[in-house]
């Protein structure tokens, strides 16, 4: 029973990191109908930049802010320079393009930062809290991880639902033609959407690095699990993405705890297949036509 609690907390904490990636993927999917396979690699890159900042003696939080800001810029530039030309083309173009960005970033990172596996600092302790000698099975860093992703979600929700900017972004994503007629700079909205998504990815990178360590391909599997979560959630729904990602986190944690750590990815795959066989558009996708 005690182990079950440990695995559950682990699953939720990792699941929240996947959720940040899943949310980023969903944002970009809703805006441009593209899956950004380079999301994880971008996060790896910004995390390295944070590490450099911190290594030069700056406090963790400055590194944190720099990583998120760099994410915003990388995302926006990628959209404007690389993605814009393929947005109107058959979907496979964008798939290959983002794979190209993934491969390029994972090759440039070791050139700039070295290919070595490095540990990454935490802002608060990652030792489980003790109350009167009994472990609560959750560390301050796990609480920070869960809290940070929840706050990011809340902020995004507020931006999209409560501000004019959010309304414009939604309009640009939902119907670019009409949005254009209404005088919305659709291109700019899409660029901003990519930037915000990459910012979210950068957050995931910062939260994942202390446990997966930092090396050029450290986000590959995090991306796959985040993507799995997003698909389970239905790709259209931010809430679905978070729910799906936490579900994947729990599945991985239970499988690795009770069955064998090496089988964990199979657990994620299994729930994906079960969900997709029952609902080919994921759990939280309602009434939309199948995308070809």
């Amino acid at each position, binding site marked *: 029973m005690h*182990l079950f609690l440990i*695995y559950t907390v682990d699953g939720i904490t990792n699941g929240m990191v996947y959720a940040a990636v899943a949310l980023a993927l969903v944002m970009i999917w809703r805006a441009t109908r593209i899956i950004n396979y380079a999301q994880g690699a971008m996060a790896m890159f910004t995390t390295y930049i944070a590490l450099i900042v911190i*290594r030069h003696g700056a406090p963790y939080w400055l590194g944190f802010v720099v990583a998120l800001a760099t994410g915003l810029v990388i995302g926006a530039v990628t959209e404007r320079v690389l993605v814009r030309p393929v947005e109107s083309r058959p979907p496979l173009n964008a798939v290959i393009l983002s794979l190209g960005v993934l491969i390029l970033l994972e090759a440039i990172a070791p050139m700039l930062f070295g*290919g*070595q596996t490095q540990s990454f600092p935490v802002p608060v302790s990652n*030792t*489980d809290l003790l109350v009167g000698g009994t472990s609560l099975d959750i560390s301050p860093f796990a609480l920070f991880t869960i809290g940070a992703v929840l706050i990011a979600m809340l902020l995004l929700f507020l931006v999209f639902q409560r501000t004019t900017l959010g309304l414009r972004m939604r309009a640009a994503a939902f119907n670019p033609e009409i949005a254009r007629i209404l005088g919305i700079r659709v291109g700019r909205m899409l660029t901003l959407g990519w930037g915000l998504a990459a910012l979210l990815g950068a957050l995931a990178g910062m939260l994942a690095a202390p446990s997966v*360590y930092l*090396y050029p391909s450290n986000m590959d599997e995090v991306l796959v699990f985040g993507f799995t979560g997003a698909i389970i959630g239905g790709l259209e729904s931010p809430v679905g993405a978070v729910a799906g990602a936490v579900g994947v986190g729990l599945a*991985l944690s239970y499988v690795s705890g009770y069955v064998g750590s090496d089988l964990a990815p199979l657990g994620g795959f299994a729930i994906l297949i079960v969900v997709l066989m029952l609902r080919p558009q994921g759990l939280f996708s309602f009434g939309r036509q199948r995308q070809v």
Partner: protein
Amino acid sequence: MRPEISRSRTLAVAAAGGAAALLTAACGSSTPTSTSNTASAPGITATQVTIGSTQPLTGPAAPGYSEIAPAANAYFKYVNAHGGVNGRKINYTYLDDQYNPTSTATQTHKLVLQDQVFAMFQALGTPTHLSVVSYLNSNHVPDLFVASGCNCWNNTSQYPETFGWQPNYTIEGKILGQYIAQNFASKKVGFFLQGPNDEFGTDGFTGVTDALQGKSLNVDATPAYYTPTAAGAMAVGAAIAGLQAQGVQVIVSFSVPLFTAIAEASAAGLNYHAQFVVSNVGSDPPTLAGILTGGALGKKLPAGLIGGTISDTYLPLLTTSANPWVTLFKSIEATYAPSLPWDGNVEYGMSEAFTFVQALKAAGQNPTRASIVAAVESSHWADGPGLTPYAYSSSDHNGFTGVQMVTVDATGNLTTLGPVETTDDTASGAINTFSGAASTPPASGIPSD
């Protein structure tokens, strides 16, 4: 048609051979100091010996291990700067296999087919090198001093070209096990191993359980395993939590440094204060500290994270700067590889390079692949950097046969615990205290003839 094909090929080969001979003659005449040197084998010219290796320069085993080949190369540069071996410079080509057995296979083919290496040297890793050991042996490529303690390298009938170097994991496991039986008799012992079905983990497990056989120790017989991949890193926490739940108090760990570090950090995160007993290959304190503190983060190593860890060594202690081997290797490092840190990996790489130079010298003026294998088998070298002599003979391809127990303090310093002990890898082989004297390096730092 077919005979024609083979005849023309023979012709082509003969023509190529002729050209090579001309080229060699030209080279030979241009180096007056070694006129009697010939291109006696693949990878050997009158002036150069090319050897190859596969190393985890990146990937999950890279922390620490990526320094080994550069350190060995620094020693070769030192030897080359002092005239080389019989007038030949050693050209060491090491390729990155990322600790991925499939890329070990393709990189080794490249070394043998394209670079035409004379021999493989210090190819690193158990699962990785197992993927090419048959290939190397069937092509009669000497496979010297594999950087792994798998018992499998000592198999003279199947792998006559392959030699181990460090004490194998079963020998090491037996001596670790004996220490546990003597010092932690009342505690519950569990295992954290690379595996399942990885000989690194299973050989060590065998050694420790052999030594615990017949002792009334409480052993958790189902080891916790890790996979040396990214997904594997994320799952270590669950594995350690499992050991904690079983009430394990002593964790015997046969793991690469990154995974030792993750295991120790995970235990600390769970407020789980188990005694770690770690195989030499996964315990180098500077490497672990580097991983755990993020290299140059400038933070102090969290107290108690690696302090108290028990391990073993078969080379002189890193921190005894009065030891002549340590002095020699540190001075070579300062000149030829100043960017490397001084740690166990560097000492390992240089020590193994020293052994290779011993072998190359013993293989004669114009070495052949057969002559270097014969030279190692009949070596009886008295002086080597190891704490014990080499075991090499025509029926034994093990290197060193024993270790000395050590403990790590909170700042990463090592202290020996008791004498050097030797044994074999059989279940019943006795563990004996080694009574020989410690060797010293030759004054030149280069093995004498």
